[in-house]
């Protein structure tokens, strides 16, 4: 096996990895914020708010990511990186919203009643009582969603964004080093997956000691 092409193209590879990393970090943060908000609104006491969130979740979950990315980039005409980030965030936030709603519903209703009895309002009881408990329960599911976001980020190469998949394809086409390319890219994606799992476990450990 000849690794020379990868050492020569290391800067391009690093640029692709860095773009994937940026998409991953901003994507996870963005979709977590949007997803948790919509999920929290999805268990609220207002009927129309619940239905609105349910509609958003169902629509955004059932339309494939490729369709959304193409629509944002080719039809709406956004630039490549914003279109990719927006598409990923919208797509993943629907799944995170579903996970959030399930997690919030799993907290016993006595907690909400106790919070109301102590005089906390709707939003306050969410922030101080429900949210910490819910975080502890749903971190494993969040980890899964983060890994799914990483895997979905490979699709942005279809819009022409130069992420890791795109760069690897380029190197592979130029140098015909298929086996080495496969090993390098697989290792990088698995390494990124391990990084996500590590960060999430550290987060979980910190939450448990509180």
């Amino acid at each position, binding site marked *: 096996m000849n690794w020379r092409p990868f050492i020569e193209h290391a800067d391009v590879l690093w640029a692709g990895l860095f773009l994937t990393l940026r998409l991953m970090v901003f994507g996870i943060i963005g979709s977590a914020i949007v997803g948790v908000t919509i999920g929290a609104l999805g268990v609220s006491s207002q009927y*129309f708010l619940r*239905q*609105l969130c*349910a*509609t958003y979740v*169902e*629509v955004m*979950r*059932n*339309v*494939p*990511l*490729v*369709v959304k990315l*193409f*629509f944002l980039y*080719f*039809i709406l005409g956004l630039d490549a990186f914003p279109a990719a980030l927006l598409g990923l965030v919208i*797509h*993943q936030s629907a*799944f995170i919203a*579903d*996970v959030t709603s*399930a997690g919030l519903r799993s907290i016993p209703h006595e907690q909400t009643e106790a919070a109301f009895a102590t005089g906390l309002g709707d939003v306050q009881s969410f922030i101080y009582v429900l949210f910490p408990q819910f975080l502890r329960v749903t971190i494993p*599911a969040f980890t*899964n*969603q983060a*890994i*799914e976001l*990483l*895997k*979905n*980020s*490979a*699709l942005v*190469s*279809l819009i022409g964004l130069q992420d890791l*998949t795109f760069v690897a*394809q380029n190197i*592979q086409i130029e140098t*015909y080093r*298929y*086996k080495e390319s*496969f090993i390098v*890219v*697989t290792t990088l*994606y*698995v390494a990124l*997956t391990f990084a996500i799992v590590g960060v999430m476990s550290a987060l979980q450990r910190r939450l448990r000691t509180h």
Partner: protein
Amino acid sequence: MCLAAAIAVLIYFARDFEWHILWRYRQFLLEGLLTTLVLTSVSISLGMVVAIVLATTRLYGPRWLRYVATAIIEIVRAIPQLLILLWVFFVVPELSGRKFTPELSATIAFIIIAASYLAEVIRGGLMSVDRLQFESGYATGLSKASIFMSIVLPQAVRNMLPALLATWIMLFKTTTLAYVIGIIEFFHAATIVNSRELIPYTTYAMLAIVYFVCCYVIAVIVRRLDPKYVLRSA
């Protein structure tokens, strides 16, 4: 109820879309949809066979084989599906020397993807059956094979049904990736029509509606079967 409101809003805005242009291409688009459905169903069926082998190896095989099966499942589930598709299309012919048609590469790639997700579903289903069932079977004097066939397997299959349908939904949405290999599935057909007639909003509205209807119907069935199941991403 909100769905009815959403449909009403959609009909209001979509009144002046050029649906009649799309209607002229209905045969082409329906053929694409058929290709998508066939690709999904074939990959699930054949992937199920491979998945059964993988799952039983992972749960009941000798130790070294168990590691191999676990490694295969975890690696295939950790790398993006687009990568798997591209490797099967570009790399495998290079390594084996034979030419693969795009349809064959797509089918093989989706079978690999389906098999690894289904192996996890099967493993979950088998592990969800209470250990008590095994022990009761042993206590009654049944053999291992007969316990598996008559007691454990029916319960496991009933438990894995929601996850199975959810995997179907995931695979249905993943078939849009076959676009890069050149297969004329539904999404590719719609983009071809769009590039010919230049009616982007109509085309993408139709894409969204069709994918939504197909996946939502199955998702409703999943939720009917198991209200607590959380559908995974794709």
